[in-house]
């Protein structure tokens, strides 16, 4: 895999919803993008939208929460928790979802795609 990051515009910042997720279609792959406001900071995360246990494209519709100091999304199907930063499933060591680089440049939300 290339280490060179290829930042691609996905949508406008206004398309994101505070403390919740949206989904983008990127080269045929579904990516869930989250905007989390905690105290005065804003964090952005992007993970694969595919729920490997529920077997459906639904992670962006999950609830946001925290487990100790980890920020998680909770699958709307069977409630497994996935760490937004690492993609690990906190309820099943065997499972892991892909994590993508995400940043905001001006008014644009960008994803890092392997070139």
């Amino acid at each position, binding site marked *: 895999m290339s280490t060179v990051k290829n930042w691609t515009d996905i949508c406008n910042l206004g398309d994101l919803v505070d403390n919740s997720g949206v*989904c983008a279609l990127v080269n045929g792959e579904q990516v869930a993008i989250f905007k989390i406001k905690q105290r005065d900071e804003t964090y952005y995360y992007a993970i694969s939208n595919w729920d490997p246990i*529920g077997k459906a494209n639904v992670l962006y519709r999950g609830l946001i*929460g925290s487990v100790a100091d980890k*920020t998680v999304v*909770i699958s709307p199907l069977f409630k497994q*928790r996935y760490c937004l930063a690492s993609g690990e499933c906190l309820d099943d060591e065997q499972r892991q979802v892909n994590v993508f680089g995400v940043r905001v440049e001006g008014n644009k939300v960008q994803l890092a795609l392997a070139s």
Partner: protein
Amino acid sequence: MSANTVNIVVVGNGMVGHHFVEQITNHGKTDDSVHYNVTVLSAEPRLAYDRVHLSEYFSGKTADDLALTTPEQYSALGVDFHLDAAVVDIDKQAKSVKTKSGQTFAYDKLIMATGSYPFVPPIEGNDQPHCLVYRTIEDLEDISASSKVSKTGVVVGGGLLGLEAANALREAGLETHVVEFAPQLMAVQVDTGGGRLLRDKIESLGVQVHTQKATQRIEAGETSRYRMCFADGDFLETDMILFSAGIRPQDTLARQYDLNIGERGGIIVNNHCLTSDPDIYAIGECALWNNFIFGLVAPGYTMARAAASHITGGDVEFLGADMSTKLKLMGVEVGSIGDAHARIPGAQTYIYENQPDGVYKKIVVNREQSVLLGAVLVGDTSDYDTLLQYALNGIDLPEHPESLILPASGDAPAGLGADALPDTATICSCHNVSKGDIIAAFDGGACDLSAVKSCTKASTGCGGCSALLKTVVDSELGKRGVEVKKDICEHFAYSRQELYHMVKVGKIKSFDALVEKHGHGLGCEICKPAVGSIMASVWNDFVLEKPHVALQDTNDTYLGNMQKNGTYSVVPRIAGGEITPDKLIVLGQVAKKYNLYTKVTGGQRIDLFGARVEQLPPIWEALIAAGFETGHAYAKSLRTVKSCVGSTWCRYGVQDSVGQAIDLENRYKGLRAPHKIKFGVSGCTRECAEAQSKDIGIIATENGWNLYVCGNGGMKPRHGDLFATDLDDATLVKYIDRVLMFYVATADRLQRTSVWMDNLEGGLAYLQDVVINDSLGLGEELERQMQHIADTYQCEWKTAIESEESRKRFRQFVNSDESDKQIVFVQEREQIRPATESELDELKRSAKSAEQIIDVELV
């Protein structure tokens, strides 16, 4: 199979015979040194059923509801059973029995559980077609058939069973009479004073009571089918006569084969329930122990245990039984304990009678006034449990024994605490569970009421001991220092109820503000929806307002229930289950246009499945344009108010149940609660809407509405408790307002009303006190809060589709108008369903893209 096999033949499959089968097969599970080969021969066409609650057959229970077991369960236990197999012959030498069809069965041990038969007095003309008895389901079918062609019914016999039978006739709509030979009703259990009050109460319910009447002859009537001629020259005309003049032990078979029989009938048994033949036992109502026949189920069960124990080498004996009873006859509570008639020499009595309220209580104590010997309670049996414990355990009476039955002055309850009971105290007499057994269950690892119930079976028979059981369990939990942690999750060290108060009192309007003030972290799937629901209950804002969006579980955010493949169900409200043909057509058109799967649900509405997230707004737009609104199927809130068709159409209905259901559904729709809430409204006592299985159940009476609360269907079914009777519309709504708002304010997260009430200290009585007597002074406030919620109701879907901002949420992709190609449907029974995993694999393998397949499958 082990080398030792014992063939056991059980003759009779009543409640006691069935209990024996359970006991002996249970023993086999723990001890496999001997194999018990059990054969059951029943004269009836069905397996054991609950005869104690037989009269409920008339209030809608079916034979299946009353069944205590099923052929499948017996087969699983390895029990060989034969129905319609009356035994006609015992061969004591060959040790075998023969049934009427000629089959023979060899036994090592024979159990006679033949029960009893109704005694029909030798009256001339007692064998006519509409002269019936009350014992089996077949008898009830006959009574039911006869009542359809009768206007008047007479029950001969004013005992316990006779009054139950009279109630059945009354409920069947007959003009009902009770004819009793003795000077009073229930002469065995109740004294003269109690009998007088009982008679008044029963007559006030429209049943005419005739005491001291000896029927001599039944002849053809002039105005009715029959005329009953009494010894004193009077007569009474009636279309049907039901004999309930006591029972006689069914001992014919035993007599023919010279087992020892009592002078007045009954197979004589010893403490092991063994008859005069060392391999034949007799149990239940056919057995005579110490010259006494026990006509109740609990002693019969004890006999079954004694016989099973003797066969398996145990040491349980039958040593007589307490014949105390508590029951409700036509809504009149009656209790009788021990020496009700004060026949023990030296007995002293205390009597309390309150005629205006229709309450009569008497206690019988010994000469020294130190021990309770007996009691009679009519009109109010709330003291029964306490008195019974005093009597059974010989607990020292208080200095003024009368304090046990006098109305409590002040707030000190006269109840006997669980701690005062000795370990030997019987808590559940049906299953013979003592306080010691319950403590042993805790020692064995049980840690709550349901665990205790399932391992001891306590309170699973007649259920009369449930309140006492809970007291004992709670006290034991307290002693063990069990503290139930009420923290809702790691983010808040508070219960839902505490959070509710914080939100309300602190006027907190967002999750962020709440977590900042009282919690930490970002929340989770437990606290966020709970807080969302609290905010909605308290402030009733639109759930998709920005501050609340992130709180909602996906179902609340997308206003639909997510299904297994990520699509949603669409459930419009169909209040009371009433829908016009035009609206039905719209549902069909919408479903067809978007290719949705349709199903009629148990809540009397129509669910549309398979809507993609981006299809939700246009689907709802079409539905709302046709006059539909959201059904809140996705929310913890009021779901449906189920109704029967009611007096408008039904021949039996006494009130307009559909109209009432629609009004109630419209009042409470949108109310956010700790869990979903369901209502039912039935137009008459036949209860076709199954209202008693709902959180709020309403059953029409001729005078208004009876309100039942805190019932439940689903995983843990529970009948609702009768809360108030004969309410007018306004009072009904007032009570429901108060009950529901109190529930919303005080219940735990995801706690259904049934569990909530069971956990309220004081239970039903406390809730009645809060709602009916306004004991907390909260009544008007609760009504005001409910009115606010009703006034600020909005259809969430209407609000959602009207707002561009909200509509933006319903996109699969923020950067594309495509839809999710991994959602694949296939056809089944002419509708869509999600493709299974193997079907998806199959489709992938066939090297077509999912898109092509959808086209092929769906077009």
